[in-house]
C-alpha cells in the first residue's frame, strides 16, 4: 500500500517505542523488526499521528520546519512499509 500523507495513520498496536537520547527504538512484536527513530521530533510526530485527520495535519501541529517535511514523510513511509504505521481505516 502506497503511503498517503492525506490519510490518517497510527502506530500499529504491536509496536512498542522506547525513548532514547537520539529519539527512540521501535520494535514490532508481530514481524519482529527493529527500527531506530533518529530524531525526537519524529518520535513526537509518530506518537501524535492518531490525533489528527491526516499526516499533513500532524506535521502542522508538530511544528516541524517545512524544509524537513520531505525527510519526515520519507521516514513515515518507511515505517508504513514495515507495518509500523497503519492507516486509521485499516487499524479500526
Amino acid at each position: 500500500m502506497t503511503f498517503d500523507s492525506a490519510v490518517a495513520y497510527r502506530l500499529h498496536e504491536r509496536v512498542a517505542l522506547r525513548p532514547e537520547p537520539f529519539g527512540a527504538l521501535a520494535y514490532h512484536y508481530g514481524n519482529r523488526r527493529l527500527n531506530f527513530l533518529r530524531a525526537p521530533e519524529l518520535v513526537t510526530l509518530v506518537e501524535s499521528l492518531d490525533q489528527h485527520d491526516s499526516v499533513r495535519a500532524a506535521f502542522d501541529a508538530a511544528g516541524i520546519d517545512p524544509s524537513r517535511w520531505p525527510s519526515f514523510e520519507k521516514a513515515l513511509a518507511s515505517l508504513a512499509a514495515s507495518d509500523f504505521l497503519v492507516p486509521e481505516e485499516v487499524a479500526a
Partner: protein
Amino acid sequence: MEPTELIDETETEAAEAEELVEEELLVEEISIDGMCGVY
C-alpha cells in the same frame, strides 16, 4: 578572498546544507536476524 568569492562560497554551502537536510536519515532499520539468545 574577495567579497564576491565569499558570497559564492556561502551560497554553495547553504545549498549543500539544504540538500543534506532533505536527505537526512530519520529511520534506520536494524537487522536482528539470528540474534536469538545473544545477550
